[in-house]
């Protein structure tokens, strides 16, 4: 019953919805009840049967393999960048060099 409903939901979602950032198709993960964008490795939650596809709702998926390090590195570079912004005024040249 639940599986059948999920399949119907997935079919409806896949007809129209894609990942908001990469515009690539989404995959339904029944275990975590989330829509997963494989292109970016990001999962978007489904709350109460409503998919939440706002980029800030998405979470980077952490897997035990090399993706874990990737996510850590991303988090590290994120905090480093925000530190930079706290300390010094925004420097456009420097920012583009870093990223």
């Amino acid at each position, binding site marked *: 019953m639940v599986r059948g409903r999920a399949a119907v939901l997935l079919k409806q979602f896949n007809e*129209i919805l894609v990942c*908001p950032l990469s515009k690539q198709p989404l995959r339904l993960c029944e275990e975590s009840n989330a829509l997963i964008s494989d*292109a*970016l490795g990001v999962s978007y939650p489904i709350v*109460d049967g409503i998919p939440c*596809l706002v980029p800030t*709702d998405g979470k980077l998926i952490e897997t035990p393999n090399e993706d874990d390090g990737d996510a850590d590195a991303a988090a590290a570079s*994120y905090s480093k960048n925000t530190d930079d912004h706290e300390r010094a005024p925004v*420097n456009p040249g420097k*920012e583009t060099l870093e990223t």
Partner: protein
Amino acid sequence: MKPSSSSLFTQTIKSLSRIHSRSTRLFSTDTIDHSTTNPRIFDRSLKRRHRDRAAWLMNPHSDPLLDSVAENLLDRLQDCKRAFPKALSLGGALMPVRRLLGGRGSIETLTMMDSSLEMIKLCRASELELPDHEKIKTLYVVGDEEYLPVKEETLDLVISCLGMHWTNDLPGAMIQCRMALKPDGLFLAAILGGETLREMRIACTVAEMEREGGISPRVSPLAQVRDAGNLLTRAGFALPGVDVDEYCVRYGSAMEVVEHLRAMGETNALVQRSRLLRRDTALATAAVYQSMFGEEDGTVPATYQVIFMTGWKEHSSQQKAKRRGSATVSFDDIQRHFGTPS
């Protein structure tokens, strides 16, 4: 492939969360972010919370202003002979659009998208109240107009009723709508224009000058009418059409104006806004509003200028202007043939 694409994600999140980190730096007026290409004018996550609040405050059965705007927008569907099986309705006045749709445009599958989960839940709950013959297959999504989660070339119609004026990148959002449309698909939007709340703008400025010796932005910068046509053309829509309507709503007092704005989720969400409002400034604003614009019967007017935009996605069947200089008949000949008007 993977690291670069996930860094795209972190970058976006970074630029979004930078707005939060700035909230602690009240003294700074420099909010121009040089690291991202688009300027951040509006705090989108605050707007999301505003819309959550609006879902709790609003009257789900009627709102005179939103209803008349939605009715006016949906009226344009009746002018089109064709049917729009797949439609997307974007945030803003979602509920009035759904309530007043009444089978127009013969929509078969409707996707309703808003940035607020509460608003979407309210829409889903109110769907049950509709009469059976008006029920259509509806999909509910929480999403952001700036990052439209819709596959390319899947929709026949995009309706956005009073939501797009809160996007930081309006042309970008419209381009994404155009991408989501099938060829010959219709884009219908209503946004608030620059004359909106001009009484409020003046009253806030006068009161703040008087009480605090300076002013802060209280009313958003809004698109002017002459910009709207350019916006449609820039977003690549064919056969653009723009028209303007002004609604004047009378309220009991200036406080009721603010209450109504709250219930519509249209309160200030500028990144540069001042984060505190002193009680005496607020009261002074209300007094200025009343004395400058108040009517004899004690009511105060508030102007809402709504810009309606219509655009079509390009299709070979649409009429086009001929190439410049391709005419074979001179206007002089035409005039000679039909005679000069008396």
